[in-house]
């Protein structure tokens, strides 16, 4: 057991911290600043800032140098996430492209795809959406029915995608489509890279219960996609999707830990201010959540150790997801318990949509659904880790 960081890791942390000090405006670190911006304004600000961050070399932390990355260790990526959250830096606008698509292209993309996709992603010039879920294919992803039919040098795509993050702002969408009807539903699926600016792509916003519209639905009507926009083999889309999702496997939750821990501190401050901190039930809940968050951090250190030691990773990511999403939901509930009826009123000006705790409370309901619902994660843990029968 040795929980100290190496000199190289500490130097990395110090360097990034001083970059953030110099380049992240003070006012950006407040909820007030962001709450006065429209979603479009917020997106543009973040996109621009992220591009500058990349320009200064703070992108692709764990990507190989040949792709413009820093060739950093998994620990350095975790430190990076930690420092981003510690500084209240805004989250990336390109998660799906950066976390999932880029490493998949590095692994199985053609040379041309590598050239075309990775550099612009790193510099945040191209925003990517993920076209997986459909009205009839949520947790049962392989039930997808969007069809792509070969017509000369292009596929003609028809169907509908839903819950698509960045649907309205994305330039490209990596999309699962059915290229042939096979007896098994996992077969005949292909991963297509669709230009969102093509004819026949109609992206519409969906309003979430927070009032935001960061996801949407995408209608695809006779969209022509050149055949060289297939990622991986035709018909092997299911395996490509599994490879793609596996890149979440070794990632730590250090970023979430730092963010949630700060949110808990705010809840504690509120409880002290309004007297709820004397309520024994509230105290028990505060302690329970604080404990679960520390355990989340330890689980992240456990995963980092496995990765750094080159040990085979199992399905720890499902446990990480369950631990952080369920705990964050409990934290959202606790924040409402502490606020009491006063929490029904939004603090600040009457034009403000939601206060930070209200936003956390509502948003946390989505976290046990997206990226594999808690029920799907429990199936994975039960079947893949414990070996229980299907």
């Amino acid at each position, binding site marked *: *057991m*040795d*929980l*100290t*960081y*190496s000199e190289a*890791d500490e130097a990395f942390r110090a360097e990034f911290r001083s970059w953030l000090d110099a380049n992240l405006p003070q006012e950006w670190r407040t909820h007030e600043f962001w709450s006065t911006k429209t979603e479009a304004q917020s997106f543009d600000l973040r996109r621009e800032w992220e591009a500058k961050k990349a320009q200064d070399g703070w992108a692709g932390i764990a990507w190989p140098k040949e792709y413009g990355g820093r060739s950093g260790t998994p*620990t350095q990526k975790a430190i990076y996430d930690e420092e981003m959250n510690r500084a209240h830096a805004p989250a990336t606008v390109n998660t799906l492209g950066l976390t999932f698509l880029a490493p998949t292209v590095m692994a199985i993309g053609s040379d041309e795809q590598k050239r075309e996709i990775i550099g612009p992603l790193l510099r945040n010039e191209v925003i990517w959406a993920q076209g997986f879920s459909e009205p009839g294919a949520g947790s049962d992803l392989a039930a997808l029915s969007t069809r792509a039919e070969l017509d000369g040098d292009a596929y003609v795509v028809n169907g509908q995608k839903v819950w698509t993050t960045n649907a309205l702002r994305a330039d490209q969408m990596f999309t699962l489509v059915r290229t042939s009807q096979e007896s098994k539903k996992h077969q005949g699926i292909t991963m297509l890279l669709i230009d969102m600016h093509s004819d026949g792509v109609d992206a519409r916003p969906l309003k979430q219960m927070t009032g935001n519209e960061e996801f949407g639905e995408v209608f695809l009507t006779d969209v022509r996609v050149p055949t060289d926009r297939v990622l991986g083999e035709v018909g092997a889309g299911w395996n490509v999707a599994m490879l793609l999702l596996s890149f979440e496997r070794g990632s730590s939750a250090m970023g979430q830990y730092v963010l949630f821990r700060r949110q808990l501190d705010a809840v*504690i401050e509120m*409880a*002290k201010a309004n007297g709820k*901190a004397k309520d*024994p039930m509230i*105290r*028990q809940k*505060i*302690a*329970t959540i*604080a*404990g*679960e968050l*520390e*355990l989340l951090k*330890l*689980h992240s*250190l*456990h995963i*980092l*150790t*496995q990765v*750094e*030691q080159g040990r085979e990773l199992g399905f720890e990511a499902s*446990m990480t997801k*369950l*631990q952080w999403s369920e705990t964050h939901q409990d934290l959202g509930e606790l924040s409402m318990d502490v606020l009491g009826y006063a929490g029904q009123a939004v603090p600040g000006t009457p034009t403000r949509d939601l206060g930070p705790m209200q936003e956390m409370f509502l948003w946390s309901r989505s976290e046990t659904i997206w990226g594999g619902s808690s*029920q799907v*994660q*429990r*199936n994975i*843990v*039960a*079947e893949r*880790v*414990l*070996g*229980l*029968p*299907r």
Partner: protein
Amino acid sequence: MFFALTDEQRALQATVRDYLGDRFPLSAVREVYDDPSGDGAPAELWKAFGEQGWLAVLVPEEHDGLGLDLLDAVVLSRAFGAGAVPGPWLGTIVAGEAIRLAGSDEVQKTWLPRLAAGEVRLAFAPDLTQPVEYAGVADAIVAVQDGALVLLEPSDYSVEPLAVMDRTTRLGRVTVTGGGTALEAGSASVVGSPVDQVLDRATVLVAADLSGIARESLTRTVQYDKDRVQFGRPVGSFQAIKHHLADLHVSVTMAEHGVLFAAHALDAGLDDAKQAVSIAKAKASDSAREVTAAMIQYHGGIGYTWEHDAHFFFKRAKREEYAYGSASEHREKLAKLLVDD
């Protein structure tokens, strides 16, 4: 950055588990269970503990011990929990820690080498108003009296044996009649007074035993539910059961992390050691309670019988849940650290 057991610690774990599987399986635990008037401390097992160095683990080398870390003792405690192992190991180890941390040179010289060799059995009493584990067989008891550590020899107390619910231990009511020897040579360190240090270390060792109980109970339940067929399917294929078992796996894994970190935090004198100890005990208590209850439930009728081993784990977990602070007591300690300080 290395958050894991070392190869040596993993080897130690394998050695203990192999030994228990071979020489002291649950059928041997059952013999102790079915002999309530016995002393609950099998002599052969104790001899092996001494020979294997499992009593010497925390004794300094100058007193013929191994001088290892609390984390190494945690590896042992976890394996003993998994085996529902009876005997005065925990009391002996914790009393030894009190002597090591606060005993005079003479007291250390008198007790520690014999402790390391398995020649004496000790008991530790954090609260003399409560029943004391293995007070009846102990060659001495280290007790907390008026916030200080005292070494009591048999001439200083009498023991009234008590019947027990969890027969993987034995309990006695201790009445103190003599003064004993104050253990007051120790000094406060970053992690608190000697009494606090001893109690924290005991708490982590119990939490480790609980995490061992929890893991073993889960493993046995998963195995049973893979095999047990009802409605033409293994019962482990039903989501009502498998989802709960998945949650329990997450819970046990977190408890294991918490215990390892708490031991390391005490070993390394980390600032958040107090917090880590309470998180570990609260989580391990909750986790073991839930898993051992699920073990009974998901075995169905057989899990409720005396004949089945589930009750060994269920009762042991329940006893340890209240030892050195319950989950809610430790959460209140955490709340004090987080809210009041």
